[in-house]
């Protein structure tokens, strides 16, 4: 066992989560917002793994769940980047405030 209390992992994960939240609120560039989402997902993964390790060491549900989250994050990033590139092609910008119509 690593003798670090489980709370410390929680604090790191929380900090990363709210840093990502701050980034999501303040960025205007779509790719930067996507990066913030990745940070948030990463924070959740840390939390899952830490709880798995400390509270349920004889199971591996947290780890498997983290694996699935990583998979979903990859799928989400691929689709998001496809959308972003399409938006860039149409509007010549990826600033969320200048992209204001869904009609083409």
């Amino acid at each position, binding site marked *: 066992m*690593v003798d670090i209390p*489980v*709370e*410390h*992992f*929680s*604090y*790191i994960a*929380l*900090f*990363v989560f*709210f*840093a*990502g*939240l*701050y*980034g999501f*609120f*303040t*960025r*205007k*560039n779509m*790719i*930067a917002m996507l*990066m*913030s989402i*990745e*940070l948030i997902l*990463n924070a959740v*993964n*840390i939390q899952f*793994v*830490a709880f798995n*390790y*400390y*509270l349920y*060491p*004889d*199971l*591996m549900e947290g*780890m*498997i769940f983290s694996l*699935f989250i*990583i*998979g*979903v*994050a*990859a*799928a*989400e*990033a*691929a*689709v998001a*980047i*496809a959308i*972003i*590139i*399409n938006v*860039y092609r149409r509007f010549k910008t*990826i600033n969320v405030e200048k992209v204001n119509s869904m009609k083409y």
Partner: protein
Amino acid sequence: MLAAAIVVFSVLTVTTRLILRAAIYLLFALLATAGIYLMLNYQFLAAVQLTVYAGGIIILIVFSVLLTSHINDRLELESSGRRIAAGVVGLVGFVLTAVTIARTNFTPVNAAPIETDTKAIGTALMSYGENGYILPFEVISILLLAAMIGAIVIAKKR
């Protein structure tokens, strides 16, 4: 050490004004996370983190940055009022949740940690019943297929 790296790089990711630098800081934050998984003895998860996140997603992000913006473009800043509001929301949320966590009494279980080698993971992913994850495994394979088709259809030239 790893914790400090994660904290510093995640803050830099959301505050730097050069988007390519933000991508690289994100890469370092993800690498440090892989380090945490290694520290907790989840080698397979660390490897997946490195290949999928650090290898795949960061490369995708860097490519799309290069496709959509000039390297030296600085990101537009949100108005300072909104930035302060977002910072306050983040801080309040952090403090509230941290207080809740500090008050909760987690009791670490001292059971022998399960061996999480690739064989055990593979068996768990492929078995059904107790501790089997065949259903989410199949669902995520469908999801990945759908994401692949969707990405191609969306990004296709008309």
